[in-house]
Every structure is written in structure tokens, then in C-alpha cells.
């Protein structure tokens, strides 16, 4: 089997922990924890919904820190880390919104509510970072792209505290419950399972970010290789053209 070029011992270990941990979360969250009094088994959606939320926030925070580092040191490495982390944050954010909708329909009575500050602010947050990813795809110079996107990544973090505290600030304007983790209202095994699910989510986040970073690095290298190759080929063509001009003046020196 050919070795996976974006793997290393670290990512292999992270991958193993993710898969084993996922098995444990399925066992605990799917079977061993008790259903909730009010919403019954639907509470089990929490074990994927909350880790998706943590991964979303982590992606955007890591992205902003890396972007700050880029602006400070002009490090290409930091720029690519920001891209990788934010991309995973956006994917987690979409999954967060989708699992929330699936959970919301049977419990609140609706998939989505435009009056809900938590839901709407989360959508705004994810949309801002979708914009970040789109801006990264515009054909501009690497440095311009990195600088522009770093500023957007940092500016967009303004939404994170709004999303986080919306349920407290506007508690009557949201169907969403307040943070479950910090108020000690969860049962022992439920809390333990949720903690395990969050830790595994973060390990998976690290695994994905490292892999995605390496893919982005390779893409950058391919760009550079492509450019170097094109220059070399042009040089070769130019010298052939000179030879051709010498031997056949009618060709006017155009490369053949």
C-alpha cells in the first residue's frame, strides 16, 4: 500500500484516537445514556450537535489567531493554517445548523425560526466565513489574498461572542437553551458522554486541520512547481527560437 503523503505519526495517532473515541461516543451516546424525561431519545442528538458547535468555534478562533500571526510575521504557514481551520469550521457550522434543525422540528415545533437570535447569529457567523473562503478563491496574488483574508478572518470573530451570549442577552428572543455545560444541569453519565464527544470532536478537528493544511501546502507547491516549470520551458523555447532564427530567417524567430 502506498503511504499516504499527508500522513505522519502524529496524524496517524490522532486518526486512531478519533476512530476509537467515536466508537465510545456511539456506545455511550447511542445506548448507555438514559433518554431525557421531556424529549426522550431526541436528547441523543446533543452528542453530535454540541461537538459540532465546539468545532465551529474552534475553527474560527484558530483561524483568527493564525491570521493575526500572518499579519504579524507574514508567515505563509500561518495563512494556510487559517484557511484549513476556517474551512473545517465552516463545514462543522453547516453540520451544526443542520443537526439543530433536525433537533428543533420535533422539540420546538420548527426546523428554523427567523426570530431566534441564536439561530440567526449562527447563520450570520457561518455565512461570514463562507465569504472568507470565497474571497480566498479569487484569482489574486498570494500575498494580497493572504492579507485580505486575514483581515476578514479577524474581523468576523466579532460574531463569536454574539452567538455565544445571545441566549443569555436575549433569553426571551430565543428558543435555544442556555449553555448546558457550564451550569451543571446535566446528569453524570450524560455530562461525561458529552465531554467525551467534545474531546473526540477536537481530536478530529486537529486531524482534519493538519491534513487539510498539508494539502493546501502541496497546492501551493504545485503552483510554484508549475511556475518554475513554465519559466524553464520558456527559456528552452527561447533558445530553440534563437537557433531556428539563425538557421531559418524566414521563421522570424517565433518559437515553433
Amino acid at each position: 500500500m502506498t503511504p499516504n503523503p499527508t500522513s505522519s505519526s502524529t496524524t496517524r495517532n490522532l486518526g486512531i484516537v478519533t476512530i476509537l473515541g467515536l466508537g465510545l461516543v456511539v456506545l455511550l451516546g447511542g445506548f448507555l445514556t438514559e433518554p431525557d424525561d421531556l424529549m426522550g431519545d431526541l436528547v441523543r442528538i446533543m452528542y453530535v450537535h454540541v461537538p459540532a458547535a465546539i468545532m465551529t468555534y474552534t475553527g474560527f478562533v484558530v483561524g483568527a489567531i493564525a491570521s493575526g500571526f500572518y499579519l504579524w510575521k507574514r508567515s505563509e504557514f500561518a495563512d494556510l493554517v487559517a484557511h484549513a481551520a476556517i474551512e473545517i469550521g465552516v463545514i462543522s457550522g453547516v453540520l451544526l445548523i443542520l443537526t439543530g434543525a433536525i433537533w428543533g422540528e420535533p422539540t420546538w415545533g420548527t426546523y428554523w425560526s427567523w426570530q431566534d437570535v441564536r439561530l440567526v447569529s449562527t447563520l450570520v457567523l457561518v455565512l461570514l466565513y463562507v465569504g472568507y473562503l470565497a474571497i480566498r478563491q479569487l484569482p489574486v496574488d498570494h500575498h494580497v489574498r493572504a492579507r485580505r483574508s486575514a483581515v476578514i478572518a479577524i474581523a468576523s470573530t466579532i460574531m463569536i461572542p454574539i452567538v455565544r451570549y445571545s441566549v443569555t442577552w436575549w433569553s426571551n428572543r430565543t428558543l435555544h437553551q442556555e449553555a448546558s455545560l457550564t451550569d451543571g444541569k446535566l446528569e453524570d453519565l450524560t455530562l461525561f458522554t458529552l465531554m467525551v464527544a467534545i474531546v473526540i470532536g477536537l481530536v478530529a478537528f486537529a486531524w482534519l486541520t493538519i491534513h487539510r493544511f498539508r494539502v493546501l501546502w502541496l497546492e501551493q507547491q504545485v503552483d510554484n512547481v508549475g511556475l518554475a516549470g513554465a519559466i524553464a520551458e520558456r527559456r528552452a523555447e527561447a533558445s530553440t527560437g534563437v537557433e531556428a532564427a539563425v538557421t531559418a530567417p524566414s521563421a522570424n524567430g517565433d518559437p515553433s
Partner: protein
Amino acid sequence: MSDLVAILLAWALVIGGLGAYGLWTITRGKALAKLVPEDRQRWMTTETTNTETGKGESA
């Protein structure tokens, strides 16, 4: 939608979505690695590089 369907759908979306993304990065990495000289895949060529294979054990 029954409760069971909702639970399975939510779990499948998260695990399947992130899993598919992980697989995509690996496939894309493999395709791109063919185009890049190994000395420029720097996480594979640190000071612990294996001189026989040229592959490193670094993180």
C-alpha cells in the same frame, strides 16, 4: 419524521460529513503529492528523515 430517524440522520450527517471531508483531503493529498518533489513536502523531510526511503517520521 420519527425520533429514531431524526437521531440517525443527525449522527449520520456529522460523522458522514466530516468523514467524507477527511477522505477527500487524503485523496487530494495523494494526487498532489505526485506533482511535488519530496524535498518540498516538508513534514516528511525533517532532521529525522530516513536516508533510505527519504520519508521522515516527523509530526
